[in-house]
């Protein structure tokens, strides 16, 4: 049946060249399933009956049973039962939106259970309009059960309290779902399946490559909590932590999350909204999350008011499902492995190369020939040690274990969900059995998410949601970051791990032993506690005012973090054998007895309330929705004054016959961190849409086009990021200084007073953005092919910057002022093809985005040469000197232009003297690396056959630069603790007379060199590398045991799976991981296995 259908459609598609081209990619798949047609061999009618169930072995109603000719044979009732008579040998098809099609071949009389498998890509992702959907308005609930429950389900599907009516396919809007057919903005969604098979501690791990326009770069491979104390609540202003995002402390220190190329460090990363509440929570288990949606355009985020420029990341945790209790339990465990760990030089090579470096510098060599021999043959392990610290202190495969228990169900009036999660992730440091306590780097997390939905009466619905989270972070007392820094910088020959007498080795330069820091430094135990309570009430005012509704939402949440300092320090000893052969041990470093400190690192209270009311009405073909909205968000962090963000908004939408759409909103929004009178501003957005597929000429002539919606939005949005630039920067003030100049015998000095460090900026205001987004949504071939394309053009103005004429004579720092202008524009697209035949189902989805940025104005001062100018280039363009090979001869060294004060030698970098004045200086700085757009893409796909599932995600970036300027790895022998630091195998590619033509790095130098590295504090193109990479981010294989087996065990289903994270990477520059390199905690490859049982 599929073959002629598809070919016919393909012919049509020729007129749409773009689609045809993409379809070619999918052709193989199409052929594959097209060939799987069945041959009827018998005409005898037989009876098939049974029950259709879901994976919990709970009955599924509304399942359509069709024959080969797409004739509806039956629909299952609320008990899931069916009875059909078919010709023997024919196939019948069970279909329900959101589930993979199940094919049953009528060979013999069948009576039993048919278990439908949920699609990997669920219905929510399918932008289907209402009539075309074959799903019931509430998939799992029978309509005839109870009237109030229908209301409830409408609430859950977002139709109550929201314009648009009932629909099975919704997108997550800012504070609730919006019917997909009338959504005019730009959004992308990842759903539960895509998230839950990511073996990682946070849902952010599952996002790279999934959502077009959202760039998620990993920066740290393990959650390392902040142990910075909020200094005492006194008047010492300098130490008041500014609540930079206005959202309180973030638990995200592992990812740099950028939307459409915006710099996350400038307070431009998307606002995170968890179940309708703004909270910067990222460390939730991926399997507890129903969907993650990114809203990118002005219209869909305008209710954020002064934060609306940032976009929104909508996280929806799992929702209750009415019906009999459904219980799901998952246990999984994985092996982690650090990627791209650097390779240190052996002690002998280190000694040899350091001598070479010192000789290059005209200094005396540090090692004698005897030293070198001793390192080489290892004859003196204490005097001449050679310790590979990576092998010594790291373990190979730390484990990550997760358990998740989810129970949901409900009766007539209420439904509930309880989700319990447990995570235990080990870090890579070795542990010791010598103590009763653990010094391991470890993260334990306990989460509970419970939701209750009441249908109080026909019109009134109430939801209560409680999320609780406890995180216990343990790390060695010396501190993870400190140990990683030492690991990177300690040479193999620095000291032996242990002395012959069992004490820790060390020297005057190394008063801490790395092994002692890992095993014997006690521990730091950090705890974080979160609780979010959310009350949601919706009332339909139908009995007084038809179609009017009211919604109230309140949230209180508390977060606190504290840590126990149980660290200690052991001294180190250097063994010295004197001329007479007597051994003595010199002690270095000090003994610090185990501390017992308790410190609160942060305490935050969040408070949110919103009230909205509106009307949704239909007259004829006209559908109108109006809404008034108020909300206020308050964040109170430590002893900062609270941040208060208030919005008063009005929204309206209208559509005619679901064909022509108009929508608009205004928001009067205020933020209390601006000066009075400068706090409120007006933001607005509007959108237009046209679903061409609804036009008769399409309906009649090209019915294979289900949706072809042109849409566009434009709006003025804001970003109140003033807290990034200081605490109450409009307020001129004097502040106290704890210790000032001592007069007389007042040692240490008494308190002093000084003028606040920056001049006040009384006119500070929010950054503004004028955002245009034009898009096209399409749904073709009966939902088999869906796509979405966007062009965006975002003009930012009033960007906080230092003025160009920030002249130091004024004697205080200039404040950031609303000066800059920048342009962000680009293209985004995603395309999904899914199909199936027999019991074979598959999908392939790809997304891509092309992002341009441009500085339009930055108050740049007169630049002497055109290549010095920043304006007009991408935002944050790297500038520096162009390295043009190495100095090869003494003659060249004498004549080549150099930096003032530096005498060139052979093997040094040659920098291009762009202005040909014979000197390398600031006028020779020019844009380095690429200035073009960055291209991000992701490709995922999967297939299922009977119980077997396979899926994958490939993610990549093109036209990206990576600036590796790790002096320890690229230069080696950095001055450190009064000696020289570690060096890595990479520097063996240095310039020497013998390797003059093949060298990557300049001739060695010890103790730092202001010329070859960081020249003039600028970048050098020597270290700019192609940053393109492709990762097999995720791949998974799962098998669901056949229903007949599991039913015998009285369980719904049993699924076993194995999956992997970061299994394979290709990078254009393969010396480091394209995202993370030491001393940041390395990125992890995880191979994970698990089992899921549903009851």
């Amino acid at each position, binding site marked *: 049946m599929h073959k002629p259908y598809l070919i016919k459609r393909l012919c049509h598609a020729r007129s749409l060249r773009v689609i045809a081209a993409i379809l070619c990619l999918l052709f193989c798949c199409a052929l594959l399933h097209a060939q799987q047609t069945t041959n009827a061999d018998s005409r005898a009618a037989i009876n098939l009956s049974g029950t259709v169930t879901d994976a919990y072995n709970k009955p599924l109603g509304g399942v359509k049973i069709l024959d080969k000719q797409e004739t509806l044979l039956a629909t299952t009732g609320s008990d899931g039962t069916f009875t059909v008579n078919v010709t023997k040998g024919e196939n019948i098809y069970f279909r329900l939106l959101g589930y993979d099609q199940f094919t049953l071949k009528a060979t013999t009389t069948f009576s039993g259970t048919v278990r439908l498998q949920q699609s990997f890509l669920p219905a929510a992702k399918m932008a289907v309009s209402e009539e075309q959907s074959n799903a019931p308005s509430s998939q799992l609930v029978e309509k005839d059960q109870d009237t109030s429950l229908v209301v409830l389900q409408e609430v859950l599907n977002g139709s109550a309290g929201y314009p648009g009516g009932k629909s099975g396919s919704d997108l997550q809007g800012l504070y609730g779902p919006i019917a997909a057919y009338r959504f005019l903005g730009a959004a992308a969604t990842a759903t539960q399946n895509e998230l839950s098979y990511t073996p990682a501690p946070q849902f952010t791990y599952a996002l790279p490559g999934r959502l077009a326009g959202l760039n998620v770069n990993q920066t740290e491979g393990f959650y390392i909590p902040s142990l910075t104390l909020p200094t005492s609540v006194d008047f010492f202003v300098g130490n008041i932590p500014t609540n930079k995002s206005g959202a309180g402390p973030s638990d995200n220190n592992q990812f740099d999350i950028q939307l459409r190329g915006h710099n996350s460090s400038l307070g431009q990363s998307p606002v995170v909204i968890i179940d309708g509440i703004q909270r910067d929570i990222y460390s939730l288990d991926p399997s507890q999350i129903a969907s993650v949606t990114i809203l990118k355009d002005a219209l869909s985020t305008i209710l954020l008011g002064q934060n609306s420029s940032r976009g929104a990341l909508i996280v929806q945790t799992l929702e209750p499902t009415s019906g009999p209790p459904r219980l799901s339990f998952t246990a999984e465990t994985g092996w982690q492995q650090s990627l791209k760990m650097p390779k240190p030089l052996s002690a002998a090579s280190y000694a040899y190369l350091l001598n070479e470096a010192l000789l290059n510098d005209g200094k005396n060599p540090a090692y004698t020939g005897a030293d070198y021999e001793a390192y080489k043959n290892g004859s003196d392990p204490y005097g001449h040690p050679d310790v590979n610290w990576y092998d010594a202190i790291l373990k190979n495969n730390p484990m990550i274990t997760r358990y998740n228990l989810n129970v949901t169900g409900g009766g007539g009036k209420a439904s509930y969900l309880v989700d319990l999660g447990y995570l235990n992730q080990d870090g890579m440091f070795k542990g010791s059995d010598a103590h009763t306590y653990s010094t391991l780097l470890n993260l334990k997390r306990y989460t509970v998410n419970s939701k209750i939905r009441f249908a109080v009466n026909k019109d009134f619905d109430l939801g209560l949601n409680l999320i609780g989270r406890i995180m216990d972070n343990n790390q060695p007392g010396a501190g993870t970051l400190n140990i990683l820094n030492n690991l990177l910088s300690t040479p193999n020959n620095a000291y032996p791990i242990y002395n012959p007498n069992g004490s820790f080795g060390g020297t005057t330069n190394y008063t801490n032993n790395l092994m002692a820091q890992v095993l014997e430094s006690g521990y730091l135990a950090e705890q974080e506690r979160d609780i979010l309570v959310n009350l949601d009430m919706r009332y339909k005012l139908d009995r007084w005012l038809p179609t009017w509704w009211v919604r109230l939402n309140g949230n209180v949440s508390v977060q606190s973090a504290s840590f126990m300092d149980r660290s200690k320090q052991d001294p180190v000893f250097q063994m010295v054998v004197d001329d007479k052969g007597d051994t003595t041990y010199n002690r270095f470093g000090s003994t610090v007895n185990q501390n017992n400190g308790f410190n609160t690192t942060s305490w935050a209270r969040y408070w949110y309330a919103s009230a909205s009311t509106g009307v949704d009405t239909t007259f004829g073909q006209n559908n109108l929705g109006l809404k008034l909205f108020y909300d206020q968000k308050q964040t109170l962090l430590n002893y900062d004054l609270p941040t208060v963000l208030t919005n008063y908004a009005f929204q309206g939408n209208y559509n005619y016959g679901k064909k022509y759409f108009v929508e608009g909103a205004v928001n009067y929004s205020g933020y209390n961190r601006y000066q009075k009178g400068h706090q409120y501003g007006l933001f607005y957005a509007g959108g237009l849409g046209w679903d061409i597929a609804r036009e008769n000429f399409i309906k009649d002539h090209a019915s294979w086009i289900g949706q072809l919606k042109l849409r566009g939005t434009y709006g003025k949005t804001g970003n109140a990021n003033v807290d990034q630039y200081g605490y109450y920067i409009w307020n001129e003030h004097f502040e106290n200084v704890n210790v000032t100049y001592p007069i007389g015998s007042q040692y240490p000095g008494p308190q002093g007073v000084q003028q606040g460090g920056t001049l006040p900026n009384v006119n500070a205001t929010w950054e503004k953005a004028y955002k245009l987004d034009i898009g096209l949504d399409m749904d073709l071939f009966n939902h088999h092919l869906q796509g979405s394309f966007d062009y965006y053009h975002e003009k930012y103005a009033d960007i906080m910057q230092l003025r160009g004429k920030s002249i130091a004579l004024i004697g205080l720092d200039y404040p950031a002022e609303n000066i800059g202008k920048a342009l962000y524009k680009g293209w985004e697209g995603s395309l999904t093809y899914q199909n199936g035949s027999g019991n074979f189902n598959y999908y392939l989805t790809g997304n891509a985005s092309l992002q341009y940025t441009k500085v339009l104005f930055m108050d740049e001062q007169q630049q002497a040469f055109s290549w010095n100018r920043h304006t007009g280039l991408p935002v944050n363009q790297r500038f520096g000197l162009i390295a043009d090979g190495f100095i090869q001869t003494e003659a060249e060294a004498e004549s080549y232009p150099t930096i003032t004060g530096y005498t060139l030698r052979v093997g040094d970098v040659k920098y291009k003297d762009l202005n040909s004045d014979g000197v390398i200086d600031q006028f020779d700085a020019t844009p380095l690396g690429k200035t073009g757009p960055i291209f991000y893409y992701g490709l995922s796909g999967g297939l299922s056959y009977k119980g077997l599932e396979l899926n994958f995600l490939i993610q990549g970036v093109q036209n990206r630069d990576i600036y590796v300027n790790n002096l320890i790895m690229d230069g080696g022998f950095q001055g450190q603790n009064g000696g020289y630091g570690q060096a890595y195998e990479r520097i063996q590619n240095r310039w020497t007379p013998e390797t003059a033509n093949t060298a990557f790095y300049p001739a060695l130098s*010890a103790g730092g060199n202001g010329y070859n590295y960081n020249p003039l504090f600028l970048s050098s193109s020597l270290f700019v590398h192609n940053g393109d990479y492709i990762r097999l981010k995720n791949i998974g294989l799962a098998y669901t045991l056949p229903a007949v087996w599991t039913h015998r065990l009285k369980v719904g289903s049993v699924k076993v799976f194995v999956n992997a994270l970061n299994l394979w990477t290709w990078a254009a520059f393969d010396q480091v991981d394209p995202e993370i390199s030491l001393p940041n905690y390395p990125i992890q490859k995880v191979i994970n296995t698990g089992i899921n049982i549903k009851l």
Partner: protein
Amino acid sequence: MQHSYPYKYQSSYARMFSFICCALVLSIFYGSCAKDYETIPLGQQQTLELTFDSHDSAGTYALRYLSEVYNDALINGHNRVDKDYLDAASDDALSSSTSLSSVEKIASGAFTSTDLNADDNWTSSYATIRAATVFIVNIDRVPLIEKLPDGRPARPAYKAEARFLRAFTYFGLIKRYGGVPLLGDKIYNLTDNLQLPRNSFKECVDYIVSELQLAEDSLRSQTEINSGSYGRITKEAAMALKAKVLLYSASPLFNGGNIDPNNPLTGYTSYDKQRWQLAADAAKAVIDLHYYSLMPSFTDVFTKQNQPVGTGTENIFWRQVGNNQDVEKTNGPIGYTSAGGNGRTSPSQNLVDAFPMQNGLDITAAGSSYNAADPYEGRDPRLTATVFFNDQPWLNRHIELFAGGTDRPGGTVQQTKTGYYMRKFMGDFSTSNSTVYSNTLHDWVYIRYAGILLDYAEAQNEVSGPSQQVYQVLYDLRQRAGIEPGDDGHYGIAQGMDQDEMRTAIHKERRIEMAFEQQRYWDIRRWKTAESVYSHPVRGMDIQRTGNGQLYYNVQDVFTPHFKAPQMYLYPIPYNEVVKDPAMKQNPGWK
């Protein structure tokens, strides 16, 4: 609307419940409106008016503010430049750092107007100037009732202290950059145009001198200093600083040797001997006060005067630092593992050779009795007090500075590059039986009486040649240093020198007396001798010890400095300032 009875029955409860919920939510709304926090954070509520409170007769905040101006203006010179002494950028020493140190970059001329040298203080100086001006402009609002010991009101004294500190900061600028913009008493704001031109060098000197003269009369006198006020700027400090400023302005770099002869920004456009006269007079005025005298022991100057109260002291102007072990631990020999010592500073052979013998004769002079095979025997006692050389007793043992010795072990540890460590400013642990350091006073002395004597001698020699007063300065200093007076009572000073010879003698005496006191680095610039000084390599001593303990001394070149004359006599104005301000002229040779 049709409802079945049970439904209604249920809903009355439900309505009550919903009412409660609504009330709850509304009460939360109400909570947001309640007045419960300040509108301005506590730490930022202090305004200018409160700092200079017109009702506070004690002037509490105003005086705290003044203390902070002190803190900004007076920088501790110990290991100041990126952990090194500034003089480690002259020919007196090197940094022992294994990394590329900031002083090494300065000495090798590795700085530009964008890659500023580590001693650049343009921005921080103007911050201090603003802070001082705010005090000067606003202090008159404060009704201080405090009186000085002599009964005068204290307020003018405090105002004069700020004036002094501001003048001192300007002096720090003109040493480095030549003429700089003078802001007077104006406090600039965001809306003001700050594209100011530089004032000429002459205007700057005149301004600083007039400010110091203005301050002089109001400041408290050294005689009035008591244990509660020592550390405050005195009238005599203002006089001494004036002498120093005049000495600098009379010096060849600015007076006659202007690197850009017709450029009033970089110095005077002509030579005027009268400037030397002014400098000599100003120094003489301080000497003639007879408040100050040379302390009996050279080492005590830096470590013992922790309460320079009343007259008879040597220190005139210093930064209070207090007691600690920082100098010892940072610069002490590295072999003292229990005491701790990082040997940061490596004094040069050039400096060691500048010290005369104990008989006052140069080591190269005939009959000096200098023995190159035993070079530290019979030397000026100030050598022992200034550097560590091999075999000097210290903390219960003798220092080993021969190759492979405890304090010069070789390998990768930070250690001396020259065979010497710096000893000056340290407490005296030469006879100590302890193996650890104890706290020692480490105030940083900007101006001491010995320096004023040398300033006077130098200026007077330029005015009238080597007069008796000039000779007497050298005798006094050498007597205190412990040099033998000799039969003729001339402390080894040659008699009958002409002006040039005397100039050389004074320069030499100044170098050894004031080593590491942030003098040499500036002196070779203002004398305009830097180009010749930096043309010689910095040398060190390599000592080899044979198996039987015999020592062999070999002088080695350790470092080759570079000095690009004439541009490096002045620092570049930071490029950012020049590019933002068309009126701001860069110094010659810099971009």
